[in-house]
């Protein structure tokens, strides 16, 4: 009886601690979102107000009226296209490495080490090349770089997912007279669709959230939302509403997507080291 009582108390303490920690981590996000629904007067009232008197959408209206909101569309085009490209060529490469050990450990290690080089070191020569090729501030330029940047991740993750598929299925397909390409389309891709889906989401989020490449390689035409947010920095302080509204426009879709794929988060974040 006493032990049961103590267990209940322990659970209550843990629950309280868990709630407190979660609120602590969510508070900055709440603050960011909340500011976008305030009026300018509320943003600059002292002491700061922790919630708006009523939900105001004027900050968003301004972004749509001025066309700033199209930067979210640019992010979608760039992240979406580069994800499709990286997934397609990356998965083919992953299959070859997973099943044929093409290039051995050296190739696999070289590929993953590509992911870990700091972007600033890569983007500098790419920028000089793009200036020469006229690719600065164009969709193809940005898409190509994001594709290349995400490729190591796709190859690495899909290699793991393909290794999870029983090889017997592919053997059966070959015995049934499928060509190797048919086997890829009709056996390997359908069997690894959960992995394809999870990897594609991660790839998309990386490109969507990326800042440095976009900062360097965009001017006005293909500005992504992350760069647009920084355009409001350091100016008049009445840009606060824009900073928060723009950030929410870029962040909310990610929250929704991630909400649907909790199952895959651990594996995706750990570069496949944890099967989750």
């Amino acid at each position, binding site marked *: 009886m006493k032990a049961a009582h103590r267990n209940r108390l322990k659970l209550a303490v843990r629950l309280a601690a868990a709630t407190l920690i979660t609120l602590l981590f969510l508070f900055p996000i709440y603050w960011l979102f909340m500011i976008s629904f305030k009026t300018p007067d509320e943003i600059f009232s002292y002491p700061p107000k922790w919630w708006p008197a009523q939900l105001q959408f004027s900050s968003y209206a301004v972004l749509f009226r001025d066309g700033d909101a199209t930067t979210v569309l640019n992010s979608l085009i760039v992240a979406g296209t580069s994800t499709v490209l990286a997934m397609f060529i990356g998965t083919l490469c992953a299959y070859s490495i997973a099943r*044929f050990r093409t290039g051995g450990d050296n190739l696999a290690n070289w590929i993953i080490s590509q992911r870990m080089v700091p972007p600033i070191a890569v983007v500098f020569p790419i920028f000089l090349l793009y200036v020469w090729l006229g690719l600065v501030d164009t969709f193809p330029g940005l898409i190509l770089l994001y594709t290349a940047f995400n490729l190591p991740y796709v190859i690495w993750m899909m290699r793991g997912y393909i290794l999870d598929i029983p090889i017997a299925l592919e053997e059966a397909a070959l015995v049934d007279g499928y060509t190797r390409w048919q086997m890829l389309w009709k056996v390997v891709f359908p069997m690894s669709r959960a992995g394809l889906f999870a990897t594609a989401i991660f790839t998309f989020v990386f490109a969507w959230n990326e800042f440095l490449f976009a900062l360097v390689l965009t001017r006005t035409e293909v500005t992504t939302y992350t760069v647009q947010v920084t355009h409001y920095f350091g100016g008049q302080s009445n840009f606060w509403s824009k900073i928060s509204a723009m950030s929410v426009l870029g962040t909310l879709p990610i929250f929704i997507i991630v909400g649907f794929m909790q199952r895959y988060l651990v594996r995706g974040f750990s570069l496949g080291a944890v099967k989750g």
Partner: protein
Amino acid sequence: MTASQADLVLRAGARPGGGRHDRRFKYALVAPSIFVLLLIGVFPLVYLLVVSFQNITMTDMDKTFQGLLNYRLLVQDTRMWEALLHTVIFTAVALPIELLLGLAMAQLFIDRLPGRQVFIALLVLPVVVSPIVAGATWSLMFNTRFGPINQIIGWFAGEEVNILWTINPSLVYPAILAAEIWQWTPFMFLLLLAALSGVDKSQLEAAAIDGAGYWRSFFKLVLPAIWPVMAVAILIRGLDLFRLFDIVWALTKGGPGTMTETISIFAYVKGFQQFETSYTAAVALMIIVLLTVVVLLALKRVQLAR
């Protein structure tokens, strides 16, 4: 069909002397990826190497061979060494804190808890926020007059406080680190939680019966079991911290002065604001070589995959 026959069919291409058709197939699959990776993996290296031996600046397209001029400047550049030092400081402080906080949180959530999945789903959110947005968020949080942090401190102090978080030299590091730790502790938490749930419970119970205390069984049983995952998490976060740019950019742009300039910000300023092209090439090359060596050494020790 026996297993060995099947193996022969599928793996024929992998063997020396295997079918020519299969060999073509396996190389055709990797070709597009390798092409793209060479474009960003090898082209920049070669290009940087060439440019770093010249002396190109915004005003001067001097393409004559300058030998090791830029590398000599690099070694003598105290600003570069300081940027490297700042990067190391950020990494050395943030990484252990994220690891320990993440581990403590994982311990809290490892056992049954009402609403556990909801808590975890909510705690992950900071990780998926764009780092530049995270930085912007914290610059709102840290605002001297209209941010909630000074307000809360004011409640405890009992008077108005006007702390200049992103300007005061002794407070910029804590401010940046707070944002960084806020964003990435949940990452550590998520990975370590997964690792902890793989620890064999019966072993822990047996150890408890044998009279082993909490810490003893933690160091003897739990830590060795979660180490492989922990090592991966440390590697990923360590390399991320080394390229730290966005959060610092949003909060201080490397300031005040160059106090919080990381190596990435230093290279950005040199290359894209001061247009010291050849010098930046040398910096970038140094970063690539440094990191590639570290990564390849680390990959030998850390098991990223089977």
